[in-house]
Structures are given as C-alpha cells and as structure tokens.
C-alpha cells in the first residue's frame, strides 16, 4: 500500500512527500528527516530568504507610483482582488434579477413576446481572467498537438518527408509570438465573421492560434525524433508479421514514441503559456495578459502590487501545468527516464 503511494508520489512529481510516507512506514527516521530537510526544509528556507531580500530591496526603490510593493503589500492586493471578485458576483446576481423582472413585465404586457436571458455584461474579474487564459492556452495547445503529432510521425517515418519539412521547421521555430500576432489577427479578421451566436470570439481565436503556432515545434521535433529512433528490430517484427500501415502505427510506432511525444508536449505547454501572456498583452485579448496591461495603464497606487500578483499567478500556474505534464510524461515513459 505504502509502496504504491510512494510510486504515485514519484510519478506525479510530488517527491517532497515521500520522506513523510517513509517516516509513517517506520523507515530509519533519522535518514528520512534528513531527506525531508533536503526536500522541503531547504527550499522553504530559501524562499523565506528571498521574501526578506525582496522586502528590504523594495523599500529602497522609489517609482513614480510610490515605493515598490513588498510581499505584504502584494498579499493585501490578493485580498482586494478577491473582494473585487465577490462584489462583482453580487452585481451579477442583481443584474439577472433585474433582467428577470424586466422580462416578466414584458410578458405580462405582451404574452407572446420573445424574451431571452442575456449573459452578464460586467467586467471580468481577476479570477475570470485566469479562467480565460487557462481555457485559451489549453485550446491552443490541443490544436498544436493535433497538428504536431501526425506531422511528427510522418517526419519520423519518412526520410523524404523529414528532409522536405526540415527547413520550414528551422525557419518558423524561432519566430516570436509578437511577430505571429499581427498576421494571425489580420487573417482571422478576414476569414472569420463573427455574429451574436458565433461559437468563439475573434480575440479568443487569435490568442489560441498564436499559441498553437509558437508551441507546436517542440512536440513536432520530439515526435519525429522519437519515431525515427524506434528499435529497428521492432520495425522488422512488424514487417515479418505483415502488419498493415495503421496497425503498425498503433501497435509499434506510437507506443515506442510516446515517451518522446510527451516530453515534447510538456515543452510545448510551457512555451504556450509564456506566449499566451505576451499575446494577450499585445493584442488586448481577454486574459491575464490584458489584466497586466490594463493595470500598467491605470497607473494607480495599487497597480504595481496588482501586476506583481499577476506575475506570481502566472508563475505558479506555469509551474502547476508543468507538474501535470511531468506526471503524464512519467506515466507514459514506462519507467524510462528522459
């Protein structure tokens, strides 16, 4: 039981807690406490030093918006952002209540009137922006995977295809999201006509497609490498058994290349998250990036603190995303470390 728990913790990357489990198990406590100190104690200690340093340095930096906020000031901004969120939710309830009353009145006057419940029109709060960003990054990432994995398999299987695609990959891989954005924006505007009932907002599409364009390369390259480095014996077995093409991909190529594919996807998601924030800032598309830009423009005495809250949020979410992908990667690499 406990061994399974340890295995689970190792796979999910929550290795910090392994010593705790071992202590409960009764493993040599001294050794485990030492491990615990290494796993949790030292990082915590380092973080506290960072906070102290930040606090003392912040007090000495005078910006035109006041002193640079220290950890405490930033923490109070978290509070005010949460309060803001709850206040907005109350307004939302009132909005729907007013709308319901208006619709009722309309129906009593003209019973066959066409009434509709309109979505709330208030501003998105900080939490709403986080949700928007997450939704956008996953959509972009999903699209990227959908394009990159099949292309990568083709590149890995066919030398001709690989040689043909290689220059394009090399040229497009290093392009910054800020360069893609205007092109994507113009193309989306030209091709996508949105109306009241469209599925997606244009702004969502431009953000998501920009994420796709920037984040598909690691998956594509890793998939290609993974596929091309499959053990020749396995390929030969497939040939001997006269497996057809799709069975070969399903039974031999995909399983062997999966660890590589997941390594690529993990890198892709990391890139995608960074790209998204930049794209949102530049294009003013909803999400955390827009939040940061709006606060920079506001220039109020709370703006700097709020931007710092956003920086930590972006960092922590990026970290969590990486952990999730890391866990998936571990699950699919069948014990092979990559």
């Amino acid at each position, binding site marked *: 039981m406990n061994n399974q728990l340890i295995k689970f913790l190792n796979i999910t990357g929550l290795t910090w807690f392994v010593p705790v489990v071992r202590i409960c198990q009764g493993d040599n406590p001294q050794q485990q406490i030492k491990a615990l100190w290494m796993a949790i104690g030292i990082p915590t200690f380092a973080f506290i030093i960072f906070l102290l340093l930040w606090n003392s340095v912040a007090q000495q930096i005078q910006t*035109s*918006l006041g002193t640079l906020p220290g950890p405490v000031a930033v923490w109070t901004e978290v509070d005010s952002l949460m309060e*803001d969120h709850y206040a907005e939710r109350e307004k939302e309830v009132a909005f729907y209540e*007013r*709308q319901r009353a*208006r619709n009722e*009145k*309309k129906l009593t*006057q*003209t019973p066959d*009137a066409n009434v*509709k419940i*309109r*979505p709330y*029109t208030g*501003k998105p709060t900080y939490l709403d922006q986080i949700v928007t960003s997450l939704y956008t990054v996953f959509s972009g990432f999903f699209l990227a995977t959908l394009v990159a994995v099949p292309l990568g398999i083709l590149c890995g299987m066919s030398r001709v295809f690989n040689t043909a695609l290689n220059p394009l990959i090399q040229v497009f891989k290093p392009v910054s999201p800020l360069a893609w954005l205007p092109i994507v924006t113009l193309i989306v*505007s030209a091709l996508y006509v*949105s109306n*009241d009932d469209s599925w997606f907002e*244009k*702004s969502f599409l431009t953000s998501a497609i920009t994420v796709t364009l920037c984040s598909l390369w690691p998956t594509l390259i890793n998939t290609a490498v993974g596929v091309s480095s499959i053990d020749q014996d396995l390929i030969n077995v497939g040939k001997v058994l006269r497996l057809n093409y799709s069975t070969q991909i399903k039974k031999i190529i995909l399983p062997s290349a999966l660890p590589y594919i997941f390594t690529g996807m993990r890198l892709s998601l990391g890139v995608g998250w960074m790209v998204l924030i930049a794209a949102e800032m530049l294009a*003013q598309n909803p999400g955390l990036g827009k939040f940061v*830009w*709006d*606060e*920079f*423009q*506001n*220039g*109020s*005495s709370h*703006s700097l603190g*709020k931007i710092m809250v956003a920086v930590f949020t972006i960092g922590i979410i990026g970290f969590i995303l990486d952990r999730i992908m890391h866990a998936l990667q571990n699950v699919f690499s069948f014990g092979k470390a990559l």
Partner: protein
Amino acid sequence: MPGQVGAIDNLEKEELKFGFIKLTDMAPLAIAYEKGYFEDEGLYVQIEAQANWKVLLDRVINGELDGAHMLAGQPLGATIGFGTQAHIITAFSMDLNGNGITVANDIWQQMKQHVPMEGGKPVHPIKASALKPVVDQYKSEGKPFNMGMVFPVSTHNYELRYWLAAGGIKPGYYAPPQDISGQINADALLSVTPPPQMPATLEAGTIYGYCVGEPWNQQAVFKGIGVPVVTDYEIWKDNPEKVFGVSKAWADRYPNTHLAVVKALIRAAMWLDADNNKNRPEAVKILSDSAYVGADYDVIANSMTGTFEYEKGDKRPLPDFNVFFRYNATYPYYSDAIWYLTQMRRWGQINEHKPDSWYMEVAKKVYRPDIYMAAAKELIAEGKAKNSDFPADDESGFKPPQGEFIDGIVYDGSKPNEYLAKFAIGLKGKQRVVDGKVVE
C-alpha cells in the same frame, strides 16, 4: 407605459460591446452603464478598454465593437480616408474641453523665465511664445525637440499644433500619401503615444511634453514628472472633444438600437452635469474603478470636480474643465466638424484646396444631429428631459462665430477657407506640400 415597451421591442440588436480609452471623458459610457440607463433602454452593453486609438478604430470598422468613445477627428478622418478609409458617423458628442498640455520639469524651468508672473504665480494662459526660446535653443544645438500627442487626427494633435503655432513654433506638415509623419518643416517634432502611456514616455525622456486628456496631465503632477502649462479650455474655450462613433453600416442596420444608445448617453451626460456638478464625486469614484480609467481617486477628482492643478500646489478653480451636457455639449454641431476639417487642411492632412461646400458635405455626412434630435424628442416624450435642455428645432448646426481662442482669431464655421487664410502658420488657399516644400 406600453409605448415605451414597444420601442424596446423594436431593438434590432440588444447585446452590444463598446470600446473606450482610459480617459475621464469616457464617463458618459461608464455612467450610462452603472446607472442602468442602457438597461432602461433594453440594451445589454459591455464596455471594454482598448489599447490605443488605432486599435479602437479598427475594431469598430471590423465589427468587433459596436461603437466607441472616439476622437472627434476619427470619424471625419476615416470618412475622408486619412489613415484608414471607412464611413464612420456620430450622433452624439461626448464632452467639451478636458485636455491639457504638459511639459517635463526641466523644460518648465527653462520656460518659466519667459512667463509673466503675478503674486509669485504664473499668469495664465501661458503661451507657447514662452516655449519658443527653449525650442530655438534645442534647434541651434541640433537636438530634436520631441513632443507627444495621441493620434494623427486627434483633437490633441490639433490643439498642440494650435498652441505651438500661436506662439510662433512650427509643428510641421503632413503630405499624404507619401509622408504621414507630420514633421515636414517642423520646429517641434510631434509623434503618437497612447494616452495612458504619456506619463511613462515623458518620464523616460523620449518626449519633452505632450497634449493629452485627463487624468494623464494631473497624473504627471502627482508623479512629480511634469507641469501642465495650459488647458484646452484656454486654447479654445468650450471646444468640442470626444464623440461617440459607430460605423455607417452599423447605424443603417440597427437604427432603433442606435437611437436607444444615444438616449442612454444623453441621460448619462445630464446626470454628470446635473445641479452644478453635484454628482461628480460619485462619477469620480466610478471612474477610478480599474475596469474604467483606474487611476487613483485623487488624481481623477482634481480635474473632474471643477479644479485643475498646474504646477504642484498651484490648484485653480476651473468649473468648466470637463463639460458633459451644459452649453449643448452633446449636440453634434456641423461647425465643430468643420473646425476639425480646417485643421486637417491647415496641417496638410488634406493636401489640396477644397471649396467651402466640400467642408459642409463632409460634416453632414459624418455628423448626424437628426438622430440626436430624434433621441432627444423621445426623452422629452418620456418625461426624462425638458424641451429647454436641447437646441431648438430650427438649429442650423452652426454655432455663431467664436472668438475665444488663445490667439484671438475668430472662427466662423460657414467660411472655412476664409478662416484658414487668417493663420500665419499653416496651409491656405491653393497651397500644397510637395517634396517637403510648401508650394502654391
């Protein structure tokens, strides 16, 4: 009231998204939303801050936004095809005044020697002739004198140019389509910076001064990085400022919706100016929300509550700094449109002679008092406004000749070419800018 419900029933579109730039003069939009005036008209409106004036205009043109808080010059510039070509109209003028010109601290120190003083305080209005020696100094040292404004067809561009030219400083010509930098033959080089970034750009030393709307002049005072030397109220008393713009195609498709929007905006403007600005503190509180302007309450309150702080500590009463309704501020006057067109002509954005009739035609194409009056009539019928709140039915759209400009030149909207001929600096008659030179 069944009649009222009938009007609401006829709305072609009920869910709308409007754009704005973080400036206090977007107030009518915020107030119409927060006070429920949009909802009263059966409209469900989202209001969204935009990055800069160009993005805002593009989004109105491509339909991402239904309408927006715009620079008065934007619908005119777009309709005649300067910059972007698209037919934009306006039926609602958002405010009078509301801008200022700010210079960096060290420029002010150099200027101050040339400003007449009285009782230890500078005499207002401060003219650009006090800045001229400073600009000349930069010029003789071969250094460019950079200043910022918010958009090529912005009020701010024309106000800054007006002020500079009145003080003998040449702000430079445009020569579209080849040269749209606006710096031909310039003493002071003007370039575009989005409003909320002005203080940061000034602080970085990229520009030495700027013309922008509030609260970004008072912000410079609070931050201690610059000194507002003159307000647009002093450059041209009660000048028209922002408008509410929609594309012509949108207005044709959704006429009842458009009317409902204008009604809500008129009510918001009335609220903003009611009882001697009684509601202004509440308005400032709303505007300081991070979703709207987002600057600190004190910064916004400085100009919105009838005062203006020039040099730090020099706070003077200026009750008409922001006018939203009185003096028929919301009525779209043809003569206001024509003034903007004269300035486009004066600085070469319109690089060829146009007859007076052309100015009238464009004004009538873009400014739509007919829609405004229809909305006003409905408000009067619903008992939400009085007849006397609005111009008379036979309003010609031309204000009587206005003389309260900083240089004393009189503007008569019915004679644009005659008006242009009065300026010492600027294109007039058949003059054109060709290959960087003014030719007849």
